């Protein structure tokens, strides 16, 4: 039976079980009030019994099926194939599988291959039948067991809640393990990179040109992996972005939270937040096609030499993108300053602007700083705008009118195109990714800490 069909069948069976559970619970007593839990919980109790073991076995079976079939097939192969080198054996196995499922085969089809393919086909068929039967059996058995366990004493609600808690826990564990997995894979690949290129060269080298020889006999390009120009480029662009975003974001937050009438607020706030919803690609071509040429022509008017892809264009547009981050966090923080402080200040004869300057802003400052740090980590991680508008040249410069490149841009270019997966060039992307991850992690941790600390102040 097809997997989806099987799952639907299981669901239908368990739903029938749910109804049976309700009925049975109600039939045990004269009045629903005499039950230990609401009737629905008895239904869920059966649903649980019917679904969970079946799904669990189904999942395990599906996950391990192909490995077991491989083992069985290999064990049954003629000796000459089994004595092949592991890669060759793998190739053979792949061919057999392809043949079995009717795909193109890389080598000639001979008798051994055919018999292996037949073996695979028959094993698969057996496995599918066994799986279906087992799942259905477990489901029906589970429903039956649940049904007979029901009594008016059964604390169905308690049991169902406990199970739900476990399932939720498993969900969040999966999320955490995924994160850990990503970090570990970054780490291991980065370590492989650092075996080829010393950490010190990577962190302190001033030259970045990651072109390496594809073949051993190619001349002249051993590549240099000094990431300092990328770090400075990233910092330059983030700094420009913050110079744009912080003042505008803060001023608009103060205006929105302290001065704007409620009606204006309901219109203007969502409009500002739309800025955060524009896809970054759109910002990217806005920067590259609209802003960069304008900056260039202004620069020429002033007699300055502006590169056609400049840090200023990319950073400026990125700043616009980040405004809502700064403004909405600041707005929240400012609005969270207790009204009592405003009244105290006004009550002492302060004007509204004095109150904002002397009381509200200082009180909100830690939270605002937290918001700005989050915005910085967003700026550092931003890719699309810089790819499109800041260029790829790894210049070591602090001049915003020149082209620079960033960590994220380089990760993109390192991984685009045909690459050997274990070349220094490809692995460099992981090292850069690791650095990026660590920096944004630290920024986020500090930011969250600052924000939380600030919250505690007004408990």
């Amino acid at each position, binding site marked *: 039976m097809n997997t989806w069909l099987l799952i639907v069948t299981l669901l239908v069976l368990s739903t029938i079980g749910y109804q049976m559970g309700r009925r049975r619970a109600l039939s045990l007593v004269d009045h629903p009030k005499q039950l230990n839990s609401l009737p629905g919980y008895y239904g869920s109790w059966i649903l649980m019994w019917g679904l969970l073991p079946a799904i669990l076995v189904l999942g395990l079976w599906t996950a391990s099926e192909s490995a077991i079939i491989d083992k069985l097939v290999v064990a049954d192969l003629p000796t000459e194939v089994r004595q092949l080198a592991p890669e060759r054996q793998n190739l053979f196995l792949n061919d057999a599988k392809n043949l079995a499922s009717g795909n193109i085969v890389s080598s000639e089809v001979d008798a051994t291959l055919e018999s292996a393919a037949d073996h695979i086909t028959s094993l698969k068929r057996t496995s599918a039948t066994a799986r279906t039967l087992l799942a259905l059996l477990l489901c029906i058995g589970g429903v039956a067991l649940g049904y007979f366990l029901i009594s008016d004493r059964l604390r169905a609600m308690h049991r169902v809640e406990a199970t739900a808690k476990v399932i939720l826990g498993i969900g969040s564990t999966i999320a955490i393990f995924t994160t850990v997995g990503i970090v570990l894979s970054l780490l291991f690949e980065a370590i492989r990179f650092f075996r080829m290129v010393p950490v010190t060269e990577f962190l302190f080298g001033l030259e970045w040109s990651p072109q390496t020889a594809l073949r051993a006999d190619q001349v002249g390009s051993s590549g240099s992996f000094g990431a300092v120009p990328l770090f400075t480029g990233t910092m330059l662009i983030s700094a420009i972005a913050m110079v744009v975003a912080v003042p505008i974001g803060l001023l608009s937050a103060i205006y929105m939270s302290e001065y704007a009438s409620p009606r204006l607020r309901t219109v203007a706030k969502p409009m500002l937040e739309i800025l955060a919803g524009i896809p970054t690609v759109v910002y990217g071509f806005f920067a590259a096609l609209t802003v960069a040429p304008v900056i260039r022509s202004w620069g020429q008017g002033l007699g300055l030499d502006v590169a056609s892809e400049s840090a200023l264009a990319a950073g400026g547009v990125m700043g616009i993108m980040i405004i809502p981050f700064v403004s909405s966090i600041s707005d929240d923080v400012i609005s969270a300053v207790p009204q*009592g*402080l405003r009244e105290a200040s006004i009550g*002492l*004869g302060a004007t509204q602007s004095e109150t904002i300057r002397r009381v509200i802003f*200082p009180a909100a400052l830690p939270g605002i700083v937290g918001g700005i740090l989050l915005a910085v980590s967003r700026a550092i991680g931003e890719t699309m705008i810089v790819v499109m508008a800041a260029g790829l040249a790894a210049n070591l410069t602090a001049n915003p009118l020149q082209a620079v490149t960033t960590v994220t841009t380089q990760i993109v270019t390192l991984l685009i195109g045909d690459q050997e997966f274990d070349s220094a060039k490809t692995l460099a992307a992981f090292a850069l990714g690791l650095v990026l991850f660590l920096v944004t992690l630290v920024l986020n941790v500090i930011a969250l800490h600052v924000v939380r600390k600030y919250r505690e*102040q007004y408990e």
Partner: protein
Amino acid sequence: MSTVSSESTLQDRPLDSALDPALNPPIDDPLLEIEGLSLWYGDAQALRNISMKIPKNQITAYIGPSGCGKSTLLRCINRLNDLIPIVRTEGDIRFEGESILDPSFDTNLLRKRVGMVFQKSNPFPKTIYENVVYGLRLQGISQKSVLDEVVEKSLKGAALWDEVKDRLQERALGLSGGQQQRLCIARAIAVEPEVILYDEPCSALDPISTNKIEELMLELKKDYTQVIVTHNMQQASRISDLTAFMYLGDLIEYGKTDELFIRPQKEQTEAYITGRFG
């Protein structure tokens, strides 16, 4: 009960409220004169045609059930209700003869002359020292010797000096609730206002802190005119010279505290102070 109140609104006032003895205790030296004051939050009327005089250097207490408009009335006196956009007022309050509800009246100046202490103590998240000198800094005073002197004087005035004199540069939020409330009083008297308004200043405090603040208010009587809203009738009878009883936005009775608590002239007042409704 509501029929009684509406009758009193329609019949006693406005015709002869100026003559009603239950509303007009003898007052020689009025500092504040409230006249025909009505206030609306949007469409809901919170104060109905209130007229009364508040005497200088005395303590006037407002009592009445929750929601009757005590805080609202208090916040009219320093025009703090201006912060609420939906508020609309009619009538007048005169402060030494000047009409303070006049839109052209300088509210910042008014609030320097009328300090306020709130129900929930609200020190700024600054040092103790900076809290006290806040009002002075607003006036542009930054000379250290002057500020130091005011800090000492105000904290002594608020009976807090001995407890905090060694920790003036520490955060005010680290003080206990009662100390914070006295700090707020110190902050209010640092600018030497003429009137201090208290909105249930002791409702979150223990009996000892309450006691301290009551003593402090009696102490401050010689320099300040004080107006207090309280739910605690013992407190009103202990410290106030005059007491006003409000109900559903109306001023029901206003008189000398001793007389009002012993011989209330209105049935509603009697019912409230004997705890028969509320």
